[in-house]
């Protein structure tokens, strides 16, 4: 098979959506936090936590959707911790976020190890099965590529629409955006920027946890440490690439997933001289390139990373 023929296979495009799903959730989550003016570097840890919690819920006999719900709740809880530390207390968002990541992932590993004895291969669950959309999934090529995904993938695409609508067209969205641009103006409008920021971080973190949960309930069927593999950091880069817009975030996640899915298949086509690590580097290198290319024209929320204290400028 030639390297270019890969693009003509439906399985590639199907994989693109599958790989993009956790990135879509994560990027939207980070985007909502940043639109309200707070950088959430807790994302990597919150995704790890979401992955374990959802898996564990299902492993203990819970429904897959209950698993996702529990993951979102736990993610929201850690978001609340990040919010309390960075918004009312105004601590450094960089260091707090990293602290949340270290805390969430170490707690995740601890609880996982505590609940299950050490085994050579991790226990598995029955994950989400592909859901063929009646009618659309019968279309040749496109049906297999885009309309036989698992249910959470459709949920992710719907969340993009919802977030875009919420941010651009509702009073709540306006308030969130204004809090990210100028919290003092929000205060002058009689709204409470502290509460808006806390709410946005909790909601965003819940989405991040869903992204992690997708990994253990759909992509794979088990949990293992370090499985998030820097996807959270990639999401932070994608937010910049998307210039803080949900639609472009979807585009970025899909583009990124396309490269990732392509390099996986390309590895099998040209097995010879090129070390596989070079292929694995591609997604990481790309996210740095995306940052470099886009950061000049990116429309950064003006109050991003500026702590808000009432009456203090």
């Amino acid at each position, binding site marked *: 098979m030639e390297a270019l023929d890969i693009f003509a296979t439906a399985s590639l495009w199907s994989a693109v959506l599958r790989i993009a799903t956790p990135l879509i959730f994560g990027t939207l989550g980070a985007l909502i936090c940043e639109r309200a003016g707070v950088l959430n*570097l807790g994302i990597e840890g919150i995704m790890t936590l979401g992955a374990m919690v959802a898996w564990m819920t299902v492993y203990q006999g819970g429904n897959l959707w209950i698993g996702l719900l529990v993951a979102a709740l736990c993610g929201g809880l850690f978001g609340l*911790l990040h919010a309390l*530390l960075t918004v009312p*207390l*105004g*601590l*450094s968002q*960089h*260091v*707090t976020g*990293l*602290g*949340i990541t*270290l*805390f969430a*992932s*170490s*707690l995740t*590993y*601890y609880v996982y*190890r*505590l609940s299950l004895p050490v085994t050579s291969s991790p226990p598995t669950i029955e994950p989400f099965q592909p859901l063929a959309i009646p009618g659309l999934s019968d279309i040749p090529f496109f049906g297999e590529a885009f309309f036989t995904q698992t249910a959470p993938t459709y949920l992710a695409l719907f969340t993009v629409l919802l977030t875009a609508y919420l941010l651009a067209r509702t009073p709540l969205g306006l308030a969130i955006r204004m809090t990210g641009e100028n919290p003092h103006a929000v205060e002058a409008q009689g709204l409470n920027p502290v509460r808006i920021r806390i709410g946005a971080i909790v909601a965003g973190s819940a989405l991040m946890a869903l992204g992690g949960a997708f990994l253990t309930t759909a992509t794979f069927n088990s949990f293992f440490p370090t499985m998030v*593999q*820097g996807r959270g*950091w*990639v999401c*932070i*880069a994608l937010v*910049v690439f998307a210039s803080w817009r949900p639609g472009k975030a979807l585009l970025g996640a899909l583009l990124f997933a396309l490269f990732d899915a392509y390099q996986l298949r390309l590895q099998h086509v040209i097995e010879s001289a090129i*070390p596989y*690590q*070079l292929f*694995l*580097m591609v997604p*990481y*290198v790309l*996210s*740095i390139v995306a*940052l*470099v290319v886009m*950061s*000049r024209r990116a429309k950064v929320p003006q109050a991003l990373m500026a702590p808000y*204290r*009432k009456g203090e400028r």
Partner: protein
Amino acid sequence: MRLERRTQSSLALLLAAPIIAIVIALALSGGLIALAGVNPLDAYAAMVKGAFGSRLSISETLTRTTPLILTGLAAAVAFRARLWNIGGEGQLYAGALVAAWLGHNMAARLPTPLAIILIMLAGMLAGALLLLGPVLLRLRLGVDEVVTTLILNFIVLLFVSMMIEGPLKDPLAFGWPQSVPVDSDVMLPKLLSRSRLHIGLIIAILAAFVIWIVQSRTVFGMETKAAGLNTKAASFAGIKLGRTLLGVACISGGMAGLAGAIEVTGLKGYVTLDLSPGYGYSGIVVAMLAALHPVGVVITALFVAIVFVGADAMSRALGVPSFIADVIVSISLLTMLVSLLFTTYRVRR
């Protein structure tokens, strides 16, 4: 209720802050230990015994302290100038890889002390160069260095994996991905016989004092502080921000790279992918617990090392998962951030 800036913060308060933070972190982690069905006090006693109980355990704790001092310094130096270098882990591996390569190929051609010094310098250079990229991107194009340094960690780890399975692979390692070994001549001398403790500890402590003197006694040190406190005021005062940050990056990346070079030439003798159990990330905690003070870093690195070595022993004895060490350390970071806040702010009704 609101926060009000203190007019001055007393030394006692500054010294109490990390202690209070650690006590609260231990109390919270105690709850998690109790979840495992073990009395937290027994667990902590086992940890102290595991870290100090014998000559061997003390030497192990000090061996573990060495890289933590260096990665702690890497974070402390950078954060003081508001340069968010989160790439300590990658810089450590860069230094380690260069040290293994030089130590394998060059040892026989040079007198031993010269070879060791050269390896240390090369390790520092590798770490520094790795950080210069993200810093230049920030200065020239305004790219946030947090994300670039974080992502570089993954790229470097893949690169190391490629090297130790490729050009630097040890053909005698039975197929294990492991780098060629460093020549035994250039291994760092032991500090204590019949132990793994090596003179890297002395090098790390010396580095802390040198950095302390540079920070408190030189123009460059003052410039880095000014750049961190208020960028605009600093550039108004004629400080060249770019040059200062590049200098900071060289020291910060250099320290992390040195940590890698010392782990290879002092302890392991070769590079594997589990050379560092997250020293780069733990370094951030070490630096924050020390409130970014270079000499404080030596003490907080010791604390973190005690937690890690102690937790391993405690885990073997009582069956509490050793991940509890990471939990204790990460909670300490969060509680320290809060208690540091109260050294500069007070609560007013």
